[in-house]
């Protein structure tokens, strides 16, 4: 039951984009078209889940037992960077169409704060292995939800007459603000 609660909260209430401000760069950069946003979301979800599976053992079987938690930052970033490389090579070899769809987004994910943020938050909140994986998948789905909604709004916004100083990034941030306001409504769900 706890895991279900954690999942729902990661998707809707503690949404990575709208609550933790993680992954804002792709959220603003790759949200002009719905299908591109969806591919980005799927790629991020996949890498988030993998990161959860890989960083938890490193943290709990290596860094903490040997008293080296200060190496977290360096080791997490290196693991994430190599993980993304491996996934990219694997996808390119095994599934060219999938690579076509999400290939260009994969390298960008290395410097996506959401991935590093997941590893750090899971360690900070002292989640167990199952919790970390559920948290990762939930965070990915929450990210996908936010970026697809954002892209859908921005496709409509193309036709709107936006005052000139607000065109581009400012209106996107204001839309994100209104979305965050709407998502605040979910916080009553779990108490």
């Amino acid at each position, binding site marked *: 039951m706890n895991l279900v609660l954690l999942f729902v909260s990661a998707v809707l209430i503690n949404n990575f984009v709208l609550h933790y401000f993680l992954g804002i*760069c792709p959220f603003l950069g790759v949200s002009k078209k719905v299908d591109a946003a969806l591919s980005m979301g799927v790629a991020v979800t996949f890498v988030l889940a993998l990161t959860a599976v890989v960083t938890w053992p490193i943290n709990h079987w290596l860094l903490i037992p040997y008293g080296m938690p200060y190496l977290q930052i360096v080791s997490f970033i290196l693991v994430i960077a190599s993980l993304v490389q491996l996934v990219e090579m694997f996808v390119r070899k095994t599934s060219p169409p999938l690579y076509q769809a999400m290939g260009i987004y994969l390298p960008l994910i290395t410097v996506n704060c959401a991935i590093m943020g997941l590893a*750090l938050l899971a360690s*900070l909140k002292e989640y167990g292995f199952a919790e970390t994986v559920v948290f990762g998948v939930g965070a990915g789905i929450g990210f996908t939800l936010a970026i697809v909604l954002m892209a859908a709004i921005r496709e409509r916004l193309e036709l709107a007459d936006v005052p000139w100083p607000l065109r581009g990034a400012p*209106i996107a941030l*204001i839309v994100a603000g209104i979305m965050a306001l709407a998502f605040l409504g979910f916080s009553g769900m779990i108490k």
Partner: protein
Amino acid sequence: MPDNSLRKEFVKGLWAENPVSRQLLGMCSTLAVTNAVVNGLAMGLAVAFVLILSSLFVSLIRKIIPNQVRIASYIVIIASFVTIADRFMAAYFPPLSKALGPYVPLIVVNCIILGRAEAFASRNSAGRSLIDALGMSLGYTIALVILSAIRELLGSGTLLGRPVLGAWFEPWVIMLLPPGAFLTLGILIAAAFAIERKARRRRSA
């Protein structure tokens, strides 16, 4: 005129290429920690520390790093300085470190730092990279302080923790919550666009 061009390298980070209002880099930490001026200032200084030292280092060893592994080496350099900043903050300012949470370690994936390493420090001398990093971090810190001052003033009626607005003021709690961050930053960037366009028009007229 080497003197003049050095000044240009410094000043561009403040306005023309300001990392927050112009390049939209480092958005995660910008939005997340600016609910109080103290936090915004601390974040600005932490980023300045990492940016200045890693720019200097990258530019000093730029000729001995093989091209294929340059990004990986930059990341290791940046991660080391972030670890120093993070441990320092946790040791000397524990409440601040707790308030900033995962966002200090997250400086490692802040695009400003990797961006400056790749776009500037890897191609310029140590002196120029240092000036560039100083300008960029000052521009970043100023943007963070302005954003957090607006949010703290409207969200809790205080500045740097001291009450500024009188008892009549009903705090807008929403300014401290995530939506307030998005809305304030959107309006600030729009204002920066508007000022820039007016100034350009005046120059051309």
